[in-house]
């Protein structure tokens, strides 16, 4: 079964709300920003394959793998 990968980028000032191996559903929070109502959610359902810090953009790059 093939998989597609979806990349979600979230600012690094706040930690991501997921870690590698988490199962997420579309709409689940990927990051909650304190003191605001801002919420970054998963655009697709799947498994979090990687969470990497990108220093150039000061963001976390979250990769979600989902079945095609």
């Amino acid at each position, binding site marked *: 079964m093939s998989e597609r990968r979806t990349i979600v980028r979230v600012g*690094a000032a*706040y930690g*991501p709300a997921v870690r590698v191996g988490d199962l997420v559903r579309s709409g689940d929070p990927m990051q909650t920003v304190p003191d605001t109502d801002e919420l970054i959610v998963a655009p697709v359902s799947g498994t979090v394959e990687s969470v990497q810090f990108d220093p150039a953009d000061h963001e976390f790059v979250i990769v979600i793998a989902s079945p095609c």
Partner: protein
Amino acid sequence: MKTTVRALLIAIVSLSSLVGSNLAIGGTVFNYQTAKTDPNDLSFYQPPITSEPYPLTSAKKVKNVIFLIGDGMGFNQVALAGAAVAGPSGKLHLERLPVSGLMRTHSSNSLVTDSAAAGTALACGVKTNNGMIGMTPDEKAYVSILEGAQAKGMATGLIATSTISHATPASFGSHIKSRKLEPAICEQLIDNRINVLFGGGRKFFLPQSDPNSGRKDDVDLLARAKAAGYACIQTPAELRMADASHVLGLFQLDALKTREPEPSLAAMTRKAIRILRKAGRQSPEDRQGFFLMVEGSQIDWECHANRAAGVIRQTLLFDQAVEAAVDFALRDGNTLVIVTADHETGGLTLVGGDNEDKGAAELTVKWGTKGHSAAPVGIWALGPGAARFSGTQDNTEIPKKIAQLLGIRPFPRLVR
């Protein structure tokens, strides 16, 4: 068995308290002894031979200011690096500065700041929203302490181990709505005629026709810089030879790798001081002194990755720059050195330490988050006026105090 390890650090990555209870504890182990034989070798660093504080000064006039910022460097990052190389009783150079205090770091829109809002507070003396550079949330641009010093006739400089247009250096030399607009930030840095710009990020100075460009336009900023009188350099040899009053040193296309053959942060700091000292003497007002900001940018990055070994290394590289600044300040007598952080990153805590075998320390390193925290950070100072930085203060107070000492008035003030 008697251990010869000065510090055995066990890093347990704990992602529990600040990012949600759904995150279980994972674990990695870092052994400082093995780290000494791999690329994380810390033998480049010489800890102080004494833990005695550097002397207080009786001088009253502040001529030069060297402002060093460890990005993400909370108290425990300092303690961790100190324990690793100097044992539990030892100190880093920055801890030997004779005056110390606490600094709060919240931004306009969050208790947890980012480097843009924190940099703006430290540079301009005003709070702003995370992500904004050199302006308040309503987009009113405020003069930075560097710009205030420059207007007074002082020579100025910025050094970072990130791209030179990253949030912290950008806050001292530009005004823009978003930290992400690095190509535009670079244009402002050059147009502001800051004497010394050392760091990474050459890609933002190249037109899009260059395969290495990070721009989406045809602006050739290196050409613009040369036309404005900058000597543009990119190697350690060129750094050693640089003798102009304006020097743009971009040693990588992206951020610095903080490894040879690049110049170290300390080497860049020493060279910048020499250039700025000379440029300050050549100013129309003669002998107006200089303002230099030095950032250890990558402490934050290692904290985001929850890598204890990297935190130690980057903190020590930063501490070498502090030593270079202090070395000059003690000889000069009229130089104020301020060391602080923009915020803490990682929610780092040190627990479970045994202190056996005369200095061997065993510490358990725990991380509370992969993001920043709201923890207060330390501030250390040396030189004339240093006493003003003791006690607990807000980050916006720091440039206001520097402005008072340098006679920059009014401050804060709007950019005209």
